[in-house]
């Protein structure tokens, strides 16, 4: 070991190792980047379509199934008729609206924020898909909510970065997401959003006009995060969605 104990050798080894590992990782990351970017694009398209009911869920399935990555681009073109970006009161069409980085936008002032909105069609009906971004217990949560022209929820999709497995992570399970279908976001004329409620007397979620879905036991903070995310996002979007519905 004697020859490896000197200071000079130690510095040399450390430098060499960092350079070698750095070059390998940089090479790998650059090589795989296009593939990863493409996967992320497909995922966003799949999520948006999932929320408005274009998915591969079958009767009796308990897991959320997306349409396959091979078809997704074509299905996205077929079903999403308009992609809009709302910024400071202006609505502009933008075919790349689904690539807007919500994390960056969420830090900006409402006036400067780019807010994407997707108008889609399925079986002759028009849906308005709103992307959402918020905070769970450990890290970011995000998702999409699809509304029909009566402001009734057609479907949602949630995802998270690092919620607890078996508890908060279950927001992306179908038994939770399916509860949102058919829920009202308004109570009469006042905007209510949808509350993920504990102590709900309606665990089967038969009541669709109570602006509530049943919470996941043991995932209080994640559920509150979902509630807050839906409320704050839809409040900002509401005037524009109304405007779109009127045409």
């Amino acid at each position, binding site marked *: *070991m004697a020859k*490896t*104990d000197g200071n000079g*050798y*130690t510095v040399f*080894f*450390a430098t060499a*190792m*960092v350079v070698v*590992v750095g070059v*390998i*990782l940089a090479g*790998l*990351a650059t090589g*795989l980047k296009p*593939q*990863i970017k493409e*996967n992320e694009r*497909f*995922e966003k398209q799949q999520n948006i379509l999932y929320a408005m009911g274009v998915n591969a869920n079958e009767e009796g399935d*308990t*897991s959320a199934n997306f349409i396959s*990555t091979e078809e997704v681009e074509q299905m996205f073109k077929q079903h999403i008729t308009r992609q809009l970006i709302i910024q400071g009161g202006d609505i502009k069409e933008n075919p790349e609206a689904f690539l807007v980085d919500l994390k960056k936008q969420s830090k900006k002032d409402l006036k400067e924020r780019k807010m994407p909105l997707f108008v889609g069609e399925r079986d002759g009906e028009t849906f308005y898909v709103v992307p959402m971004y918020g905070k769970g217990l450990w890290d970011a949560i995000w998702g999409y909510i699809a509304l029909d022209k009566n402001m009734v929820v057609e479907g949602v999709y949630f995802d998270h*970065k*690092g919620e*607890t*497995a*078996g*508890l908060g992570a279950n927001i992306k399970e179908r038994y939770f997401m399916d509860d949102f279908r058919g829920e009202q976001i308004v109570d009469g004329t006042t905007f209510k959003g949808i509350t993920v409620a504990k102590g709900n007397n309606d*665990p*089967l979620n038969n009541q669709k006009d109570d602006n509530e879905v049943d919470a996941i*036991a*043991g995932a209080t903070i994640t559920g509150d995060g979902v509630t807050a995310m839906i409320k704050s996002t839809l409040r900002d979007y509401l005037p524009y969605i109304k405007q779109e519905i009127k045409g």
Partner: protein
Amino acid sequence: MGLLSKKDAALIKDPLFDNNPITIQVLGICSALAITAELKASIVMSISVIFVMGAGNVVISLLRNVIPSKIRIIAQLIVVAALVIVVDQVLKAYAYSLSKQLGAFIGLIITNCIIMGRFEAFALANGPWRSFIDGIGNALGYGLILCIVGVCRELLGSGSLLGYKVLGDPIEKTGLYAYGYENNGFMLLAPMALIVVGLIIWVQRSRNAALIEEN
């Protein structure tokens, strides 16, 4: 095992039972508590650790004569971190949905003290082939306990295994739930994982008195 000599076979067998990294050496407890609420996460974590540990032990073993002893821990960390990033990136590019499910777990591998422990205790003093077997053996031992804990927690906590509702539906009150059975939500929290690990240690030591430390 025709492929392995007796000594090599012991490298696989020992960490599975009598020298298990979790129950005997009490290493890797953090991840054993954090991710075992569902069996699927346990299995996936075990597979990832098998890969990182096998490959990492070989790399460290090959470098064992050139790593300066003063900075060997940092050198080991770089190897683990690099391997974890490779796994993460490759999964993201070619198995995107799998990498989505694994999420934070992949990063958590870096903090797994069993890996550093085997680098330090074994790979630095042994050849690549034996280090490889030792790494696989210890990762299997770790995975075994993870899966046992995962089965207990998911079955008793959520009434399901790998997502299938094996005990019936708790909301529709079918299966066992029709008779008043309830899921134990406490099983999903980390303290119960520690208690389950404790029970495994208890069973293991009462079956093999040689494992009990003299006091």
